[in-house]
């Protein structure tokens, strides 16, 4: 079932006579219950795009429909009510420092006019859900980044929203905390069936919890689709660069450079998708083509639609053997890309 529908949405900012087209003619459909990712570099227009969903920014053109709400036709009062069902978490958490954890989480309930006793019961529930028991009376300044984002998440869930918008929600956190927050979001998505729209400049975040992804560049959505498909067959150069954030860790490049300096073999990146990731392709390759294979670096990334593995090898052999080897690999549903020739 379709939950979010953007039709030809644009946003142009007027700034001192200059106009900035932050979002250009975007069409987007997001299904109920999915975790939808938007990836792009800084300035691509991602934040503007999410802010168009809850109308924190008004679109210059186009229409936004969320659930049954034709967002642009709502009165101010109806818009405020709708926003209680479309909550948001932020890169810098945006908690009220003057309120305790408990009172921060109670804020949206106060806004919604929930009675005090009910409010307290609900806050306690949420505190348990995000794993902050015992920290109710702390102030935000006494919490770590990860704990602050947990408060942000609890606060966002307070009024049982239909959609959770996440604007770089993990970008201010270290990798370990990022993982735990992503896990929490994933749990919430599974348990509550909450639709999540997640914005990031980090492809590993997309890989970990999104089922579909849109790539933004310069205000445009240049590519979108199932995460595994995008990993397998990136259409745009920018998408390839993002996919490499996951497949080519820094030490892979180091290993390859070293290999090149020693002038041995041809470095090839093998890409395995889904079930192939487990097959003994390399040993079969050595047997079938009689080449020497050095494994330089490998990793497997688990996406929500299946696993995606990459392996860097250097193959030593003559021209003919090399071509046979590549043909052999492709025959086994493995993609092989020559990175460099010695």
């Amino acid at each position: 079932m379709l939950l979010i529908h953007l039709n030809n949405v644009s946003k142009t900012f007027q700034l001192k006579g200059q106009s900035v087209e932050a979002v250009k003619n975007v069409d987007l459909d997001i299904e109920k219950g999915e975790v939808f990712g938007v990836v792009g570099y800084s300035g691509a227009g991602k934040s503007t795009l999410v802010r168009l969903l809850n109308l924190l920014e008004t679109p210059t053109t186009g229409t936004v429909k969320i659930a049954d709400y034709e967002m642009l036709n709502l009165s101010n009062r109806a818009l405020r009510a709708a926003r209680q069902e479309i909550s948001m978490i932020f890169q810098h958490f945006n908690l009220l420092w003057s309120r305790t954890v408990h009172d921060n989480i109670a804020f949206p309930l106060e806004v919604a006019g929930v009675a005090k006793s009910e409010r307290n019961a609900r806050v306690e529930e949420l505190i348990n859900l995000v794993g902050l028991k015992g920290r109710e009376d702390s102030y935000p300044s006494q919490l770590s980044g990860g704990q602050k984002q947990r408060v942000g998440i609890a606060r966002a869930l307070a009024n049982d929203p239909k959609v959770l918008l996440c604007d770089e929600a993990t970008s201010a956190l270290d990798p370990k905390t990022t993982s735990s927050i992503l896990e929490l979001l994933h749990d919430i998505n599974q348990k509550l069936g909450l639709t999540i729209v997640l914005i990031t400049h980090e492809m590993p975040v997309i890989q970990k919890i999104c089922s579909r992804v849109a790539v933004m560049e310069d205000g445009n959505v240049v590519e979108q689709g199932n995460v595994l498909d995008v990993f397998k067959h990136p259409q745009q150069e920018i998408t390839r660069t993002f996919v490499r954030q996951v497949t080519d860790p820094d030490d892979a490049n180091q290993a390859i450079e070293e290999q090149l300096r020693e002038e041995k073999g041809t470095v090839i990146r093998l890409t395995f998708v889904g079930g192939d990731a487990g097959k003994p392709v390399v040993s079969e390759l050595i047997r079938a083509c009689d080449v020497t294979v050095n494994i330089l670096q490998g990793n497997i990334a688990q996406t929500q639609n299946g696993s995606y593995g990459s392996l860097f090898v250097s193959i030593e052999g003559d021209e003919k053997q090399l071509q046979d080897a590549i043909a052999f690999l492709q025959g086994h549903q493995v993609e092989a890309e020559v990175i460099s020739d010695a």
Partner: protein
Amino acid sequence: MLENVDWENMLEATWETIYMSGVAILFTFFFGILLGLILFLSSKGQLWENKVTNSIVATFVNVFRSVPFIILIILLIPFTNWVMGTMLGPNAALPALVIGSSAFYARLVEIGLREVDKGVVEAARSMGANQRHIIFKVFLPESMPALVSGITVTAILLISYTAMAGVIGAGGLGDLAFRDGFQRNSTDVTIVATVIISVIVFIVQGIGDVLTRKIDKR
């Protein structure tokens, strides 16, 4: 030593000073925050963005902030007469005190409100907060340390203003120091009045500092 000091007069003057400052502070807190809120919220990019309102309030604040208090108090004599129905005693000083210090405090309030994290306001909007929520649950509580330290500075300014209130016969320690101390050449009276005023200022500053520190959870 202190042979010219009439302690009964001194005590009365002290009470007058405390009364004038105390009442004026209460009114200033209210009007200053009101003016500061209007000043801030009517400025560019804010909730009630409105150039006309903004320039009217800004002009009012700037004029009353820049007129020397001693002149303000004289200028306001007809107004005071109309509002208070009298030009006698400490009450006669109140309108000028409140107007002068509210204008001063309004600017401090505006600065404090401007410091409130835009992200937090945006978060409140994203949760469906209306203007009342944003003002009373976000802007005011989040700027409270600045509002309290601002009212402390304003209170000290007010105490020094009350010293000038003697011009219109409103009494207080400043008046006493001038008439009994300076004009009758009784330096001891001036010194005692000065010491008492300083003690009041220290106490006010101390209370303000403690309060600010207690509120500030950043």
